[in-house]
């Protein structure tokens, strides 16, 4: 094995040689430098492998042939190997990426680059604190120099600020170091640590200086303005190295120093780290410059890393895995994003819209951003999971919440940025060329992210290959993305179909129901996919990603798997939603609510497993005294997905703007994931009381109000898809209420409503989607009279709304009937009454939907509209068949469901007599009702046929507005402001209080972010002031340095 000292020798030797090569052209020096970096990378990776595979022992490298403390020694241990491997590999990739820039700027830039990396290597390996100082200076100066290489505007001023700041920090570090030497009589870190007890009582200031200097090199809030300016001003390639290599190396330095810190210091370090994490992410919210945004994110992530290092005593042996998992995501993704920034070469995040024509780059960007946000299957997902779980074990819920809040803020700006890239309309999608040497490193880090994800998954016990199968399927579809739609759709159907038939025997009970909804429903909706022509770039992998999440969620046996699946599903659905028109903000809202919800779930899981073995979902049964809180966390978490009132504002836009066949996916299928989650929560936690109030009562009221408000809003919509979206909110309110009843009938109601909702909402969204597709408008007042053009769609919608409104004889009534029985049994009459009212309002919007679209007068521009495409109609017709079967044979589903529920709620079950259901209050015979109604209908219809046999068909007459062109033409349409009297009477109920509330939350966050980032006033002197102040504040906080 090559001795690690050769890393230094190679770098220095090459750097000095490069100094000779000023006149030999650009290529030779570049090749030399790359070779040197390659050699360094090789050596470090060789050691890493030796440590990982051969169980290599750590090795001390003595210089000058003397033992420490008399000479400088380096240490090559496992951790050192890991960190220098990271630094060198990233640097190597970076050198490839920056080939052009480096060659342009000549030999000097190459040797500076090389020396920076060398400096970082020594910083990681050295065990001598003065040596640490020297090589820190090497890397600082090199960094400042590198800012000159093809930097952005104002790179020089950034460089000066950087120099001043790091110079100041280094000065303080030096004071600390010399006093360490004075106290310990040695400069060897090991000696200083060993003799800590003898000097700590007097040496606390020196310790403070050293620790804080190292921390300050890690850019803690608020003393990090200089770092942000550097990130903004640097060449993206350099930014990548600073963020990936330098920061990573410094984290390790801090880790090395931690044995010096007393326990009290740990808290300070955790506090500093978390403050940086949260504050940077808040301040980042307002940021529009892409590179500065990355800077904020870097600072935040590193802050989290600092906090994690500060937890070393808590986390014990798990520390490194967590730290590395977080860092792996950070340095790979951050480098990737910086590099992408170089490729895109646009300053503001909005301008990234030019990426739209580059699906591969978009994919990479998505990968990086989701990796940063801690989504599976990336390392930080597992890191965050382990971290939260460990902290929960310790009862550090405050820290957990801070971490989650910070992460949420990070998601805000990261996803907004991604949204701009995918959707920002203003940017012309220009073609720009990508040099392979710039693309290659980006591709490699993305690949590495996935590999690292698998590795850390394996470490966390998430390694079974079959749990990655659905993801692999999505990946395969991504590779096949060049194929035309019908091929990909067939592949998708085959794949999912195979999965369906393979797995459906595996599930029983409620899981089976949801399996049918998720996978069966998915298959059904995918049938519609054939209607599209062309390639439909990116759709299939993303859709499969969502279904993969749903499938894995059912498979999940422990909380990690569940959460993994949950996040996969969120990611997939986010991308599906953002594909829609004008969906940028809605997708962002969706993602933020989902992530927020997911964090609550994560926190709930954390509390659940605290102090227990394993992660099984069964642990939810034995939470103990914390269970009310777990219940609340999980319930709210899942309610973000079911869009319950207060958490619903993402839904209407997201569903309404989605593509024709995506709307049913996200509405009919996806929402049920939340229901599934709620069911799990309620089954395992049951009734929970907080302050003597049954939380279920609160949930029931939320469900009731959700239903009322959702339906009410739906009734006043002008946009057909939005109407359906609000209707989904309302329907899910019923479900929530049903579940909150916590009785046999209640659950039966909830699940049958869920099933019915799945059926009719899939159908309606497809049907309305077809209409929108044909008429090119979503506004109902721009439609009318389409019954003649789209008769099949009309019938579908008719059946859909009858089912939806629960009018007998169709299956929707089952839900209503069960529901009243359940209410009577439970005694929640008032809630029941409100729900009834909500149901009546549902009738209103149903009518409006069918009336204004299909009836009335045909618009001139729709004279040539055709029936919806066959492939859109096919699934609708299949659903109709399903609805008819369920209507005629309600017991085919309710009876087995009842049996399943019997195990949870033995009391109050229905008794069945063929199709006649008997509750203790009433009875209902679905088959009979259907027969009777059909018979009457048929007879009356026959009668009508007879009496009107001679009828003659006339055309509708036109309406003329007295030759005046109205200012807003839509206001004269009969379907505009349809339920005006109703709105007049009850409009106050739909006052958008919740939307306003969330808007205000958003605005005040923005304002706060803006105020916060004002401390970074761009003045280098102020930054020094921050640094000095940082020392003093910590000095006073620690009451004189502990």
């Amino acid at each position: 094995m090559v001795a690690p000292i050769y890393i230094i020798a190679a770098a220095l030797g090459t750097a000095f040689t490069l100094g000779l090569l000023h006149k030999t052209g650009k290529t030779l020096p570049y090749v030399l430098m790359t070779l040197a970096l390659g050699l360094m990378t090789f050596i470090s990776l060789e050691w890493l492998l030796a440590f990982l595979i051969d169980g290599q022992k750590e090795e001390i490298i003595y210089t000058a042939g003397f033992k420490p403390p008399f000479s400088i020694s380096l240490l090559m241990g496992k951790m050192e190997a890991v960190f220098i491997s990271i630094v060198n590999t990233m640097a190597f990739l970076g050198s490839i990426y920056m080939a052009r820039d480096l060659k342009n700027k000549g030999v000097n830039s190459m040797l500076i680059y090389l020396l920076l990396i060398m400096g970082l290597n020594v910083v990681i390996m050295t065990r001598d604190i003065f040596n640490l100082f020297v090589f820190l200076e090497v890397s600082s100066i090199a960094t400042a120099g590198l800012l000159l290489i093809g930097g952005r505007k104002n790179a020089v001023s950034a460089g000066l600020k950087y120099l001043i700041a790091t110079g100041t920090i280094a000065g303080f570090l030096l004071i600390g170091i010399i006093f360490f030497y004075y106290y310990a009589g040695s400069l060897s870190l090991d000696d200083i640590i060993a003799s800590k007890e003898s000097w700590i009582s007097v040496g606390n200031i020196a310790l403070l200086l050293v620790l804080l200097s190292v921390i300050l090199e890690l850019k803690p809030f608020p003393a990090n303005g200089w770092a942000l300016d550097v990130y903004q001003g640097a060449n993206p390639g350099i930014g990548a190295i600073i963020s990936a290599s330098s920061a990573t190396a410094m984290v390790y330095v801090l880790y090395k120093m931690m044995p010096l810190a007393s326990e009290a210091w740990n808290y300070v370090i955790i506090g500093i780290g978390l403050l940086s994490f949260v504050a940077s992410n808040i301040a980042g919210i307002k940021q529009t410059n892409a590179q500065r945004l990355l800077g904020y994110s870097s600072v935040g992530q590193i802050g989290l890393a600092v906090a994690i290092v500060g937890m070393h005593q808590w986390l014990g042996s798990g520390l490194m895995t967590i730290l590395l998992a977080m860092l792996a995501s950070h340095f790979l993704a951050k480098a990737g994003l910086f590099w992408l920034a170089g490729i895109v070469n646009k300053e503001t995040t909005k301008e990234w819209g030019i990426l739209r024509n580059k699906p591969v780059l978009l994919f990479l960007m998505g990968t990086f951003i989701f990796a940063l946000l801690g989504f599976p299957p990336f390392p930080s997902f597992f890191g965050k999971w382990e971290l939260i779980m460990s902290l929960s074990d310790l009862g550090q819920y405050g820290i957990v919440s801070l971490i989650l809040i910070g992460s949420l803020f990070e998601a805000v700006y990261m996803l907004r940025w991604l949204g701009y890239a995918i959707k920002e309309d203003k940017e012309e999608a220009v073609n720009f060329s990508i040099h392979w040497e710039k693309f290659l490193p980006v591709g490699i880090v993305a690949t590495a992210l996935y590999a690292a994800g698998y590795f850390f998954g394996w470490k966390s016990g998430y390694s079974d290959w079959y749990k990655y199968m659905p993801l692999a399927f999505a990946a395969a579809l991504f590779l096949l993305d060049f194929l035309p739609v019908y091929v990909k759709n067939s592949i998708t159907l085959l794949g999912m179909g195979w999965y369906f038939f393979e797995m459906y025997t595996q599930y029983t009970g409620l899981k089976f129901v949801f399996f049918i909804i998720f996978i069966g429903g998915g298959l059904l909706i995918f049938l519609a996919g054939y209607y599209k022509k062309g390639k439909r770039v990116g759709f299939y992998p993303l859709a499969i990603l969502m279904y993969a999440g749903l499938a894995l969620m059912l498979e999940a046996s422990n909380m990690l798997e569940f959460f993994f699946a949950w996040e996969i599903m969120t990611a997939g659905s986010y991308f599906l939603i953002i594909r829609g028109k004008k969906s940028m903000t809605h997708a962002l809202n969706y993602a933020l609510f989902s992530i927020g919800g997911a964090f609550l779930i994560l926190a709930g899981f954390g509390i659940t497993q605290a102090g227990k073995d394993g992660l099984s979902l069964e642990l939810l049964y034995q939470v103990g005294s914390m269970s009310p809180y777990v219940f609340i966390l999980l319930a709210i978490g899942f309610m973000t997905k079911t869009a319950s009132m207060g958490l619903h504002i993402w839904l209407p836009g997201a569903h309404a703007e989605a593509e024709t066949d995506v709307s049913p996916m996200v509405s009919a299928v996806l929402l049920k994931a939340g229901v599934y989650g709620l069911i799990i929560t309620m089954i395992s936690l049951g009734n929970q009381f907080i302050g003597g109030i049954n939380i279920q009562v609160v949930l029931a009221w939320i469900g009731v109000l959700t239903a009322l408000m959702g339906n009410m809003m739906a009734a006043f919509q002008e946009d057909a898809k939005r109407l359906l979206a609000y209707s989904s909110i309302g329907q899910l309110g019923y479900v929530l209420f049903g579940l909150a009843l916590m009785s046999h009938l209640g659950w039966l109601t909830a699940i049958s409503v869920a099933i019915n909702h799945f059926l009719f909402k899939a159908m309606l969204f497809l049907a309305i989607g077809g209409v929108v597709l044909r008429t090119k408008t979503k506004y109902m007042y721009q439609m009318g009279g389409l019954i003649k053009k789209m008769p099949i769609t009309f019938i579908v919608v008719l059946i859909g709304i009858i089912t939806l409104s629960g009018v007998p004889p169709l299956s929707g009534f089952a839900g209503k009937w069960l529901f009243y029985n359940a209410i009577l049994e439970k005694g929640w009459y008032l809630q029941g009454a409100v729900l009834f009212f909500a149901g009546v309002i549902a009738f209103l919007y149903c009518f409006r939907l069918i009336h204004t679209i299909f009836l009335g007068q045909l618009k001139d521009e729709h004279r040539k509209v055709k029936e919806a495409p066959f492939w859109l109609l096919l699934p609708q017709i299949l659903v109709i068949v399903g609805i008819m079967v369920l209507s005629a044979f309600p017991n085919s589903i309710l009876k087995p469901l009842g049996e399943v529920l019997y195990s949870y709620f033995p009391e109050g079950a229905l008794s069945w007599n063929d199709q006649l259901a008997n509750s203790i209050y009433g009875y209902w015979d679905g088959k009979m009702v259907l027969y009777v109604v059909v018979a009457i209908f048929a007879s009356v219809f026959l009668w009508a046929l007879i009496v009107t046999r001679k009828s003659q068909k006339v055309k509708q007459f036109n309406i003329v507005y007295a030759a005046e062109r109205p200012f807003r033409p839509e206001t004269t349409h009969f379907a505009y402001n349809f339920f005006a009297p109703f709105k007049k009477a009850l409009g106050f109920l739909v006052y958008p209080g919740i939307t306003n509330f969330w808007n205000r939350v958003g605005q005040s966050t923005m304002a706060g972010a803006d105020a916060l980032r004002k401390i970074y006033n761009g003045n280098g002197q102020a930054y020094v002031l921050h640094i000095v102040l940082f020392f003093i504040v910590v000095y006073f906080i620690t009451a004189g340095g502990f």
Partner: protein
Amino acid sequence: MKFLSPEYISMAAGFLVILIGIWGILANKNLIRMIIGFSLFDTGIHIVMVAISYLKDRTAPIIDETINTQEIAKQITDPVPQALVLTAIVIGLGVTALMLVYAMKLHKEKKSLDITKFNDLKW
């Protein structure tokens, strides 16, 4: 009066120079003046370091005729901080030079040395 000893006096002086240097960095808006402050800050640190190496009534750590080779340890001051200061001084020079060159470049851009003018990167 233990403080009336060269090491204490010079260390105190060193610390005061450090403070003056920091004042110079923080209080002057002129870049050159800031850098002067910076170099004072460095010098102060160096004085402190040398003060730590000092032992009363001993000679420099250079073994010549005046030193009894048998009892070197009792006759010389600590060579280590001195070696460190050597390194630190040279590093300080490098950093100062760089800062000056950057300041020069910035002045070329904006014809000003006022650090508050270079705040295009902010927030």
